[in-house]
Each structure stands twice: as C-alpha cells, then as structure tokens.
C-alpha cells in the first residue's frame, strides 16, 4: 500500500493563508494525515513538488485575476477530487467587498503604475469557474472539519459536515442562546454551522464567518434585529463581511444599503 498513497496537493489563490495554516495547526492529527497521504504539493509546508494528477486537490482563496482563472482550470484538470476551503474560496472572501466598488478607482489609488495591474473587476468564488466536489466553509475553516473531509474522501464516505444553523451547534454544546438571554444581536440562526459556535460560547454574537446556512431566512432575522434596535446600516454591515458575496448575505446587505 505504501507506494499507492493518495496524492494530495494544496493550492492557494487570493487569501490570507489562514485556512492552510489550520491544517498545519492540527499538529497531532497532521502526522496521521501525512502518513496516510502523499503530500504532492503544499508550498506552505514543504518544498516537495510532485507532478499531477492528484487524487485530492485542496484549494484556498478566491479568483481575482485572469491568470487565476487559467490556473484554477488547470488545477481542476489535475485533481480527481477538488475540495475548496474557506470563505475566500467558497464566497470570494473579505476581499469581495471590493465587488461593490469600482476596481479602477482602487488600482489608481493603491498602485503607482496601475496600468501594470491585471485584475478581474470582482473577487469570485472558485465554483464560479470550475466544478467543485466539496466546499468547506469558514473564515477560517475549522481544522477538525478539514481533517474530517480529507478523512472522509480517503475512506470514500460522506463527510459529517452539517449545513444547518449555528444554533444547532450551540444547543448540542449546551450553550444558552445569547440572543434570547442577553439580547445580543447574533447571525447564528442564518449561519452555516462548523465553527463549533465559538463566538456565542464567549457571549459574542455570531459574525457569520461560515456563510449562509442551508435555508437561511435572512430577511426574517434582519426584521427582528431591526426591532431589537439595530439600524439598517448595522444590518448591512453584519451581512457584508467575510461572506459578503455569498448569494443570500449579499442580497440581504443590498436590501439594507441606503
């Protein structure tokens, strides 16, 4: 079996590298993973570089340049299974905030010679360009979820990753709902589970780092937040963050943009 280990490659587009680091952060478990797979390409961790095709391609980051577009198509071609990780890859990331503005203005302000900058006018999720086999949400992703996905694909089973709300995680964990008990505005009811309900566990409202849950009723939540005293601007900002360009969050923030 030793020479037939599945080849795994990790790629990066526009992102902060945080999601890749989650994998490196999984110290104990990483050894087991490294033992079970052949890390063919992972510039963050190793200089080794093996040619494709790969059994699993893991992609972090969003597509922001014409060059990226070509590259992601090449990666798709080389990867039997394509797993994308993190809010940048699944929703365009925090950098998708620029999607609401004129890109030319930005490049003119930021760069001395903007004519050398070749960029798309928007930061786009990977799935806008290629077929994706699995999307792992989060900003950053949860390292245990990443291990679970890799484990599941290696063992050809269904990853135990749920698309229900963060509320379910709070309840399974035994958290008391901070929205109800403390009146703290919380995006938990419309947000995809996976983080382990970190913020509510520390009495902070959910920021929606994992993007929209499976059937988000964002307008009903906004209406309630409004009644609780949030302004339309607060609500717009709440939805316009790490997953701003995810369809349901985008629509909701647009609805409150005055």
């Amino acid at each position, binding site marked *: 079996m030793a020479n037939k280990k599945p080849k795994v490659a990790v790629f990066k587009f526009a992102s902060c590298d945080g999601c890749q680091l989650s994998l490196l952060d999984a110290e104990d*478990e990483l050894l*087991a*993973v490294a*033992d*079970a797979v052949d890390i063919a390409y992972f510039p963050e961790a190793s200089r080794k570089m093996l040619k494709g095709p790969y059994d699993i391609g893991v992609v972090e980051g969003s597509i922001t340049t014409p060059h990226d577009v070509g590259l992601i198509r090449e990666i798709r071609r080389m990867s039997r299974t394509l797993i994308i990780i993190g809010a940048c890859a699944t929703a365009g990331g925090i950098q998708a905030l620029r999607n609401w503005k004129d890109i030319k203005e930005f490049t003119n302000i930021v760069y001395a010679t903007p004519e050398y900058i070749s960029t798309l006018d928007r930061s786009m999720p990977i799935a806008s360009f290629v077929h994706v086999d699995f999307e792992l949400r989060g900003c950053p992703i949860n390292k245990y979820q990443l*291990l*679970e996905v*890799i*484990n*599941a694909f*290696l*063992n050809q*089973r*269904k990853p*135990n990753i*749920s*698309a*229900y*709300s963060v*509320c*379910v995680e709070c*309840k*399974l964990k*035994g958290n*008391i*709902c901070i*929205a*109800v*008990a*403390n*009146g703290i505005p*919380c995006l*938990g*009811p*419309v947000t995809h589970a996976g983080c382990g309900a970190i913020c509510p566990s520390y*009495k902070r409202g959910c920021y929606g780092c994992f993007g929209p*849950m*499976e*059937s*988000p*009723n964002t*307008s*009903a*939540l906004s*209406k*309630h937040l409004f009644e609780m005293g949030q302004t339309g601007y607060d609500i717009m900002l709440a939805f316009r963050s790490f997953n701003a360009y995810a369809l349901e969050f985008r629509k909701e923030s647009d609805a409150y943009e005055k």
Partner: protein
Amino acid sequence: MNNSLKLESHHLNTLFNSLKRDNYTLIAPIISNGSIIYEQVNSAEELPRGWTDEQEAATYRLKKQNDNAYFSYNVSPYSWKKFLFPPHIRLFTVESKGKSFKINSSDAPIPAYAFIGVRPCELNAIKIQDKVFNNGQYTDTVYKTRREKVFIVAVNCTQAGGTCFCVSMNTGPKAKGGFDIALTEVINEDGHFFIADPGSEKGTKLMEDIPCSTARQSEIETAERLVQTTAQNMGRSLDTNDIKKLLFASLDSPYWNDVASRCLTCANCTLVCPTCFCSTVEDITDISGEHAERWRRWDSCFTMDFARVFGGNFRPSSKGRYRQWLTHKLASWIDQFGTSGCVGCGRCITWCPVGIDITEEVKRLKNEY
C-alpha cells in the same frame, strides 16, 4: 387520606444528602451564564435562591427577588431530556479484522440520576418520551438504561411564566404522578417550608429519613391555593379543541406561507422542546479506515438533511418543514402516542430567536380555517 408532609426549608438539604447517600448523581437548577440550567449539584445551597426568570417570546432575563425561595422561577432553556436522551452519544465502535470486523457496543457506566426541581409540564414531557422511546415494538436502549434509574423530585409551580400554557395542555401546574416526591414551596407569615408528597415507594422510603412532620390541613390548603393561583395566571393559552382536525384539515392552508416567511428554520424550537426526540446517526472512521464508530446526535425536522433521500428531499421548503413540526407536535403525535406532543412549557416561544409563538400560530391557523 393525607400523606402530605411538611419539610422545613432549612431541611431541604437533607433530602439532597439522602439522595447522595443512595448514590444518586444530583441534577438541579443552578445559575450559569445568566440563565438557570440543570446541572450536577452537591447541595441545596447551589439552587438559584431568590432568583426568578422573566420569559417572553424571544426574551429570557433573570431577576433577583428578595424572597429567598428556592424554586420561584420557571423552566430552564434546557430540558431534562439531555440526560435521558443525550445530545451526542456513541452507539458502537468497530474494528476491522481482515475481511471481517468486530462491533463493540458501549459499556460505559450509566449514572443513576436524581432530578430535583422537575416541573409538572416537564414530568409530562418525560412521560411522553417514555412512550416514544418504548414504542411497543422497540425500546431505545440509551434512553431506557438511563430512565429506569432516575429518581424524580418534582416541584409544583407557584408562579406562572410569561410563556407558560400548561393549563391548556392539562400538564400542570400541579404534578399528578410520575414523580417520587413532589414539593410545593410555601413562604408566608408561618415561615418557609415545603409540602412534600411522596409519589412512589422509593419516595416514601426516602422521606422516612428526612426530618419532617405531617402537614396540617391549613398548610396543605395554602400550598394548594398557590398552585391554583398559578393556574389562573398562565402567561398564554392554546385552544386544543378539535386541534387534530384543525391541523389535518389545514395542510393546504395559505397560513403556512405566512409562518414560513418568519421562520428561520434554525431548529431552536425542536432542540429546546422537552418532547422532540428526533436523532440522526453519523458514521466516522479514523484516517487509516481500520477503526470506525457510529454516533447518534439530536436532529431536527427543520434541517434539510432530515427528509433527504438519494435523488430527492421529501420536505425541501421551510413551509413544509414548519408544517411538519407543528402538525406532528399537536396532531399526528396524538395518533402515534395517544397524547399531544406539547406540554405547554413555552420553551419554543421563549427560545425562538424571532419569537414565533406556537399559541399565536394556532390562533392564526384557526382564523384561516
């Protein structure tokens, strides 16, 4: 005949001690993170003495009260079901052995719980789950092994919460069986005491070791009056007349669109509900694929995976999912288990993040009917 005993409040802890002596793990209300939850305790002094809760749709607040009462609050965000039907539990482990494998079921020791402070609505919820998890043909081992050891100290309600409607569901505010001991807390000019009613042999036996006296008729009546007043002050009510007919005849009602526009499908109502019993299983493996486990965890009819089968989903819309929940809870539950699935505890109202109120929803549905 009068079996009622009078237990002075300063002897309440003897009850706790006797239960501990009998090797029970005591679970009782305590304050944690701004709310009252059910957790393991050592003594009566850990109870939220002098605190009360204010509950309304989508709000819950604790308030200090200067009465030193042990039990002047209502139901907690979490119900007792988390001890009998754990949110997450391993069903078995499997080791691969060549072409075969070996399955090992869990043999972890199961504690004997003493639940202290179980409200009448909650007693009824436990009775309902008893029926659910022993459906005549099959018994749930996880539930049964925990349930059969439980000792229940019920507490009759001497105040009604803002979202309570046990009177409508005929489940309170006085406990009618299903407990080992039922307490009614009285604070008046005569002092601070409990009327204690043993409800089982176990309960009677336990009370024998506890310093208490036979309750006087007037004391019993005082306690009765408190419970009666509670019944008259219910925060809410739900009209259960013809409720089954109403729900079954309303499957195509336009009302469901209305509630679907408000419902977040976040599943909170089902998870706080003391009778909701749905669960799912997850299979996991270690990375080598040689060791596998199956876990069971709480599920909810509000999740998309709930009715998903290969190639489709029987209940994809939030309208369909809310309708499933309400219709099941109030109507088809009666066909399945001979009782409503609702005990009127009001948790689903308090803990719905947008305050959807089952009692109001039934009214709306009636108006459409």
